[in-house]
């Protein structure tokens, strides 16, 4: 049974395995530095659908299909599916789940949803609830733009601190202890709001939340940055990533080379016009499922602290003058499934 070791951190006792993982992305993400890692790349941003919302649901289904395929898992064997996206009422997920009959738990954690859903799926499996549990998230540039910002063809200028919502989806299916990658621990974040009101600077709004969750995780588990090959945030982008480094430096901790961010990895900042990097639930999900999990599986990476960050931003409340609350959840994923080792 999972152990709540206090202050938000839950340690797994059986070390559940991530048995299947898949990713699906749009053309621009396919042309990015990680393009060859993704399982499914579509040249059609509409994914053959008549609306952006439907396109996002289709994108999710592709990621789920790829995860099932890789894990040789029958869809009906997924006992619970934890899924979410950026759209109001979790539209992308609700419609992607509409016809498959899966037990669906809809989650909203903005861009932190992948860590949130993976945490839930892992805790369920660690406690033997179900045969498999899925974690699935997505984001689509066009459906996000029309909900949060402007129509796609509107001629506006984006500030340099703005991030680009990735058209991407990732799905991880957690099963009982077996082969790596394993989930060892999760830390559920708390909402941190440092007064940032600029909806075009979400990296700055989220960095303190990432700092708080990572620091809490270190303290609770008795680990340090050196305990991990990779401390991966998603998606602080270039501005938030720098700020996170600054915040740790004030504690005398240099995150150094072991720190990276999904929003910085998915696009090429020089060649692709994405300003401060990628964002969206699908960004960290696709980078995790397309690039990171295969590396842990093959033993190239050993311990990864996957910390997805979310700016829980409501356009309505921002217009009312409020600041942006942010959250981050951390999942320790490892190639070491040894149950006795801490």
């Amino acid at each position, binding site marked *: 049974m999972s152990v709540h070791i206090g202050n938000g951190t839950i340690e797994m006792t059986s070390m559940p395995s991530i048995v299947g993982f898949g990713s699906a992305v749009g053309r621009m993400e396919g042309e990015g530095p990680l393009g060859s890692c993704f399982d499914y790349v579509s040249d059609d941003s509409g994914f053959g659908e008549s609306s952006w919302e439907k396109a996002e649901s289709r994108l999710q289904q592709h990621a789920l299909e790829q995860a099932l395929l890789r894990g040789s898992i029958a869809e009906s064997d997924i006992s619970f599916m934890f899924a979410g996206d950026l759209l109001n009422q979790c539209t992308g997920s609700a419609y992607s789940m509409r016809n498959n009959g899966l037990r669906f738990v809809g989650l909203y954690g903005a861009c932190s949803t992948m860590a949130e859903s993976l945490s839930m799926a892992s805790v369920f499996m660690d406690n033997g609830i179900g045969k498999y549990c899925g974690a699935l998230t997505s984001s689509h540039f066009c459906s996000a733009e029309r909900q949060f910002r402007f*129509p796609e*063809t509107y001629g506006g200028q984006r500030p340099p601190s703005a991030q680009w919502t990735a058209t991407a989806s990732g799905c991880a299916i957690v099963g009982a202890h077996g082969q790596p990658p394993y989930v060892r621990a999760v830390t559920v974040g708390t909402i941190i709001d440092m007064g940032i009101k600029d909806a075009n600077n979400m990296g*700055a709004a989220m960095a303190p939340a990432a700092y708080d969750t990572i620091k809490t995780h270190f303290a609770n588990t008795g680990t340090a940055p050196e305990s991990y090959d990779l401390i991966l945030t998603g998606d602080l982008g270039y501005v938030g990533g720098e700020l996170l480094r600054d915040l740790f430096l004030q504690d005398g901790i240099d995150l150094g080379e072991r720190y990276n961010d999904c929003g910085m990895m998915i696009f090429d900042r020089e060649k692709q016009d994405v300003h401060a990097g990628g964002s969206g639930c699908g960004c960290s999900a696709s980078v995790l499922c397309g690039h990171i999990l295969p590396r842990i599986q093959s033993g190239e990476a050993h311990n990864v602290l996957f910390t997805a960050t979310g700016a829980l931003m409501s356009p309505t409340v921002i217009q009312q003058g409020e600041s942006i609350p942010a959250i981050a959840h951390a999942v320790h994923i490892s190639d070491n499934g040894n149950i006795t080792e801490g």
Partner: protein
Amino acid sequence: MKLTESEYGRLAKLRSPNSNVLRNTAMAFLVGGAICCAGQALLNIYKMLGTDEITAGTLTSVTLVFLSAVMTGFGLYDKIAKHAGAGTLVPITGFANAVVSPAMEFKTEGYVLGVGAKIFIIAGPVIVYGLAASAVYGVILFIVRAMRG
């Protein structure tokens, strides 16, 4: 965290790159100026073709709005606007783009609740406050004229 909200706000500002004001201003000047030159050229052409001053002005506006709408439809206007900024926003072509782009975007929600309801989602404030300003101006003009007798 060791920082207060205001200290963090300052740090965030320091780490956030600023827009390139010089480049943006220069581009806005050049592209905005080019659109106005095109307008002037159209005006001259219409006048050469024998239309009177007022009709030529109307035709010029109609032509610019039409071209902007077509370019918005083909996804070209936003690509220029990305570099031109206020240069494409301020002329009448920017207004056309602000009306056509939501009309296209929200077509999926139908012609009444999509296109009809959301067509002025960006241009709406300009219309509202433009009309309000003209009403205020009218009242002032009325009072001034009345005082002059």
